[in-house]
């Protein structure tokens, strides 16, 4: 008996002994068609443990979570819960086993009330469930109007509703997928408290995040996922931030980083006029923003998610209504102009979410690169100038070292870094004087990141000014000549070269007063 099922027996013996192992994942493989996403994942989650799972986009985290949740089935490998094997063939099975996932984007039913959203799918009578729900809410200390329609809730409130769903189901394993990506500071704190509370009750939590700060704040253990396998894991106390970052980078990233080093650069603030000026600019999500951007300057815009930076950018770009103030580009008033006119005036914007707003996935590289040029004469008066299109595309492929098999490769099949390069290339193709970059290196591996930094420096050499919106403090420090910080829709600090460091920026982003005071 012991010899027959060799490996399996061994595994059973190993896991059956550890009864407090809520979840044990062994050797999970998963491919989609020809694309191998998971190449042998091994992971354990114990009671009362908060396991942070970090990794770049495309590492396979979502896929793994969906397998745990029963949405996908693994091609190979087994999952054990408390020592016995489980077959999570569909979500209802996972739910029955006490697993619940709070997705990154809350998936509530917008036309149903909060209460209906939480109790849907249960067998018991609504009256009973309501009693349990109210008791549960009191236990965690949340107040919420159960009769509100889900469509009227803020993202944070929606997230709380999702978590309540998990609690009401008496989930033993809770998966939180980037829960703070849409939360304000207060809301995030509230969430951390909740997580700690759940932990103390023996619930196991898998916490997916991009933010290393959170890893140290809230987790007991950490696992790094890259390219479909877990490269590092262990108790969080065994790691430093640098060690984590190293675990995330591919082996040959060192030399890329060197190339991104930049020699000193001086901006003449006294004798030049600003190329972009915002005067008391107000819109939905921000108020009375005044700032100046000078030729050849990189102005960093720091702040937490929800501070209003993206709204500022999209309003400048003509995508939302202006409530007050002015935008002056190189002496010309472009306040409230349509996107096309803003483009023609010389300002371009690289959106925050390239998948949603930036890419034409089923179109090829050439079409993606030249999409903003369609209104220009250079691309032909009426007929499309195909030759010009090829030239422009090739120029960016060469200059940016974009890895493609040819101009006809579909944008959707490129890596995140190369996709971002194309979107940036497109924003430069109109020959703008100012480019607004919104989280340009989000979800990109470190190698491409270096390339993007080179591109940004390259821009500066050409005299293009950059407004760099980023939540990555390191990035801001490395690239910016000056940094302004936006907090809850207003500028609350400005830093010049010497004062630009991660501590100051982080403090300003959270509107925390340092010894030096919050300057403006």
């Amino acid at each position: 008996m012991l010899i027959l099922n060799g490996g399996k027996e061994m595994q059973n013996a190993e896991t059956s002994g550890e009864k407090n192992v809520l979840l044990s994942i062994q050797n999970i493989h998963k491919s989609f068609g020809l694309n191998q996403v998971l190449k042998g994942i091994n992971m354990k989650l114990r009671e009362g443990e908060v396991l942070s799972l970090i990794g770049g986009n495309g590492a396979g985290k979502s896929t793994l979570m969906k397998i745990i949740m029963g949405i996908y089935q693994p091609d190979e490998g087994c999952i054990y819960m408390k020592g016995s094997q489980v077959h999570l063939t569909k979500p209802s099975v996972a739910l029955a086993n006490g697993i619940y996932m709070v997705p990154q984007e809350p998936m509530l039913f917008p036309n149903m009330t909060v209460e209906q959203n939480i109790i849907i799918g249960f067998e018991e009578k609504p009256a009973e469930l309501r009693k349990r729900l109210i008791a549960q809410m009191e236990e965690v200390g949340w107040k919420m109007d159960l009769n509100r329609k889900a469509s009227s809730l803020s993202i944070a409130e929606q997230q709380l509703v999702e978590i309540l769903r998990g609690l009401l189901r008496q989930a033993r394993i809770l998966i939180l997928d980037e829960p703070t990506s849409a939360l304000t500071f207060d809301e995030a704190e509230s969430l951390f408290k909740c997580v700690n509370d759940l932990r103390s009750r023996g619930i196991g939590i898998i916490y997916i995040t991009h933010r290393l700060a959170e890893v140290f704040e809230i987790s007991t253990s950490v696992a790094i996922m890259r390219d479909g396998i877990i490269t590092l894991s262990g108790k969080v106390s065994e790691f430093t931030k640098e060690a984590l970052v190293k675990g995330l980078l591919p082996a040959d990233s060192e030399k890329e980083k060197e190339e991104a080093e930049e020699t000193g650069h001086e901006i003449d603030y006294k004798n030049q006029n600003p190329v972009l000026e915002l005067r008391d600019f107000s819109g939905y999500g921000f108020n009375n923003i005044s700032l100046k951007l000078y030729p050849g300057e990189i102005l960093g815009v720091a702040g937490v998610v929800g501070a209003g930076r993206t709204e500022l950018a999209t309003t400048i770009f003509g995508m939302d209504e202006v409530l007050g103030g002015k935008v002056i580009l190189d002496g010309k008033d472009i306040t409230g102009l349509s996107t096309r006119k803003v483009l023609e005036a010389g300002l371009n914007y690289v959106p925050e979410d390239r998948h949603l707003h930036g890419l034409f996935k089923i179109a090829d590289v050439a079409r993606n690169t030249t999409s903003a040029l369609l209104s220009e004469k250079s691309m032909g008066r009426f007929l499309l100038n195909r030759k010009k299109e090829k030239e422009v595309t090739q120029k960016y492929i060469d200059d940016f070292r974009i890895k493609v098999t040819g101009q006809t490769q579909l944008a959707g099949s490129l890596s995140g870094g190369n996709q971002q390069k194309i979107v940036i290339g497109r924003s430069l193709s109109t020959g703008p004087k100012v480019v607004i970059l919104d989280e340009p290196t989000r979800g990109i591996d470190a190698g491409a990141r270096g390339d993007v930094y080179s591109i940004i420096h390259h821009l500066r050499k050409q005299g293009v000014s950059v407004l760099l919106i980023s939540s990555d403090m390191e990035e801001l420090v490395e690239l910016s000549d000056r940094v302004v910080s936006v907090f809850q829709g207003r500028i609350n600090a400005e830093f010049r070269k010497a004062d630009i460091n991660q501590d100051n920026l982080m403090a300003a982003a959270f509107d925390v007063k340092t010894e030096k005071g919050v300057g403006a």
Partner: protein
Amino acid sequence: MKGRKFLSWEMFLLIILILEFVIFGAKNPKFLMPRVLFASVNDFIAICFIALFVTFVMITGGIDIQAASIVGLTSIIIGVGWQDGGMNIWVASILAIVAAAVCGALSGFFIAYCGVQAMVVTLGGSFLYAGFALLVSNFSASEAYQGISGFPDSFKIISKFKLFGVIPSQLLVFIVLIIIAYILLHRTKYGRSIFLVGINQEAAEYSGINTRLVILSTYVLSAVSAALAGIMLTSYLGTAKSDLGANLTLNIITAVVLGGTLSTGGKGSVIGTALAALVIGILRFGLSLCFRVNTQYLDIPVGVLLLVVVIGRAIVSRPETAAFFKKLKKES
């Protein structure tokens, strides 16, 4: 340009067309007689005209099921305008085209600027514009079922003219329309913006494209193509009827989908649609001539063709299928 895969689909359609000729020709040699073959064009030329421009609409991710009603509307406007309004026949025709464009713009407006689903608006539109046609016919002295006839020869000639005595003018107009549609969709900046809007409307907005105007314009184009089809049909039949073109919708949509256009938008080809329209038209004609299939039954093979194409495409595009074939290759 996204060339290779697409070329093979159009090749595939061409092969089917040739197969049809072979099979139908073998069954009944009369089928291959130029006189007969070219005459058949009249039966399905409306589908050809309209499908070309409904392609534009579907590439943006929309759909147009009102075009068939606009054919009848055009026809009756010409009839009533000429007979009861005393207009010059050409003026009436231009009026009809303008009316069609307005109908297209109206629906296009609701779809593009009010955010209503294309299917519903054009579904309502199909009945609304058929109703308009009925309204217009009530202005006429003639009975609705009779239709209006007695058009001047100069009008009738546009559908009776034959190049070299054989090739009907309808086919010539079709070829001209194909060229125009091809250049417009695949060679101009406007056409490129149609594709981009269909692939990702948001990203197109961020690229400075006026997406809503682009979407609206496609409905105007498709309505105008319906008007042209209406003029051609009215001229050929010599009668203006308000219910002309009543059952074309299934055939039009099938032609567009068969031609390689994705119903979710972003992909499509004028040549593909043109070939597909011919495939469907010849199929209908061949079945009725060579196999004596009753005209009323002809929707069945077209419906089956539509389902086979979309089902086949759904299965083939699944990643599991690619993996399956790769496995087969490995094992062999």
